């Protein structure tokens, strides 16, 4: 299994950080009839594992990009401990993208060190930290390979390590396992979410899988389309660590049934 790791510093700090989304609206085009998302209010506390689920086109990805400072709000705002997130700051909120987006021209370890070097970290220190982070995701021996030599699952671990290397307060994951096959998706997903949870890492994770949304979450944010809004938040109070048995409980089935009905497209326009 994975090497043990000391609890992340973020958990030891006294003040608990909050990521607040306040009355957020985003329009990609000023003239668009309908905003991509509107009226979104959400608070995420440090240490929480939040999943976001919703039908296609509900704006989950837009919400996540806004939370990371990649999109500026048309109205409302994103605040981290009361300070507006005006632009991306990976030390506050770091991304893991669905398509990994590792740089194929850089070795794995250089990919992981990249964010640290962008932040002005000394090269040697950055590489050391990157190797440590690769150990954390169980890929210490792949540090000097190129991404193209790794399987999809391993590449996504590298992308997670790249984000974690910056010790972000919040980790923003955009369907991180969407491109993987079912088997890898389940095993990697379970393993990574468990270690992220154990490390006290706050995570916002977008998924379109009902099981993932329930199994990993402290809290599920359900969105609806046309326009994109939050329709419900559901707390999942199942204690950690969670065993696969949880999936066979009646509580799990109820949650799944509820989510299933909530994210069914109800009109033709939502179906597209």
């Amino acid at each position: 299994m994975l090497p043990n790791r000391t609890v992340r510093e973020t958990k030891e700090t006294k003040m608990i950080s909050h990521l607040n989304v306040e009355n957020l609206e985003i329009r990609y085009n000023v003239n668009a009839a309908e905003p991509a998302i509107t009226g979104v209010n959400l608070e995420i506390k440090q240490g929480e594992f939040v999943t976001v689920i919703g039908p296609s086109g509900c704006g989950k990805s837009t919400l996540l990009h806004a939370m990371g400072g990649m999109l500026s709000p048309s109205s409302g705002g994103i605040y981290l401990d009361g300070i507006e997130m005006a632009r991306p700051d990976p030390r506050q909120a770091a991304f893991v993208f669905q398509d990994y987006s590792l740089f194929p021209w850089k070795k794995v370890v250089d990919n992981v060190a990249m964010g640290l070097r962008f932040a002005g970290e000394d090269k040697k220190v950055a590489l050391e930290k990157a190797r440590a982070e690769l150990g954390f995701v169980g890929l210490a021996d792949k540090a000097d390979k190129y991404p193209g030599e790794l399987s999809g699952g391993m590449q996504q671990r590298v992308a997670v390590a790249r984000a974690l290397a910056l010790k972000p307060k919040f980790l923003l994951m955009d369907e991180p396992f969407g491109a993987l096959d079912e088997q890898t998706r389940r095993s990697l997903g379970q393993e990574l979410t468990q270690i992220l949870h154990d490390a006290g890492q706050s995570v916002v994770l977008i998924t379109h899988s009902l099981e993932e949304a329930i199994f990993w979450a402290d809290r599920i944010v359900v969105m609806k389309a046309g326009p994109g809004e939050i329709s419900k938040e559901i707390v999942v109070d199942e204690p950690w660590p969670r065993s696969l048995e949880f999936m066979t409980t009646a509580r799990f089935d109820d949650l799944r049934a509820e989510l299933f009905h909530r994210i069914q497209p109800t009109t033709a326009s939502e179906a597209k």
Partner: protein
Amino acid sequence: MVKAPRKLPAARLDPSALARKAALYRTLLVIGFFVLWEVLANIGAIDERSASKPTAILAAFGEMFAGNTDTYQALSDTLYVLVIAFIIAVAIGMPLGLALALNATIREAYMSIVIYLLGIPKTIFLPLFVLFFGLGNGSAIAFGAVLGFLQITVNVVAGVDSIEPRFFRVASAFGGSKWHSFVHVILPGAAPAIFAGLWHGVRNAFIGVLIAQMFVSNIGIGYLVKVYTNNFNIDSAMVLIIISAVAVILLGTLWELGEARLTKWKSTVRS
């Protein structure tokens, strides 16, 4: 408070508007180049005797096509040599390319030789071509054909390689014979790359013909350019150079349009 969303780093420019604007500026730039050339030659900043100037080239153009049959002769000789060279290049390049592409054993044995020959400067062998094919059209045809066929061969191989294996599997799963898969999968699948390969074949055959004509021949565009330049008749040399350039660029553009038609189905498959 309504703010425009911050741009993602995607290009937000309308591509067709950009292309039109670029075409306009490009035309202006080319015109500007000729105007500047004329002006610099007129004020004596560049030596008209060795670098000519646009108005002198235009005058020479009129003269060369009015009285002088040399020009027509050179152009038709070159075209004739090029066509023969290209036919030979296709006749060798296509079957050789297909053989290399479709038979793993032949490919393993000979592909590296083809790649090697493609890579080294064939101009090295010019003196030997002259020994074998003499001072006339023979050398130009042979040299053009060699440059052309290597390009065609490599492009045919690349074209067949670019066909996705799943199409072969479909063909055989539906009981297609080798001939069926050749006609229905290989030829259409490789057609765009082969078409592009023919263009590279023509272009390289043309280059080969011109080079050989400059080196040994006593006919053709290459020969005339050399003779005019040696006699300091730069204006006439420039006329032939510009005609060759325009011909290649026009042919290349036409080929590009044809290729776009041929590969239309590809974009619809992908999206």
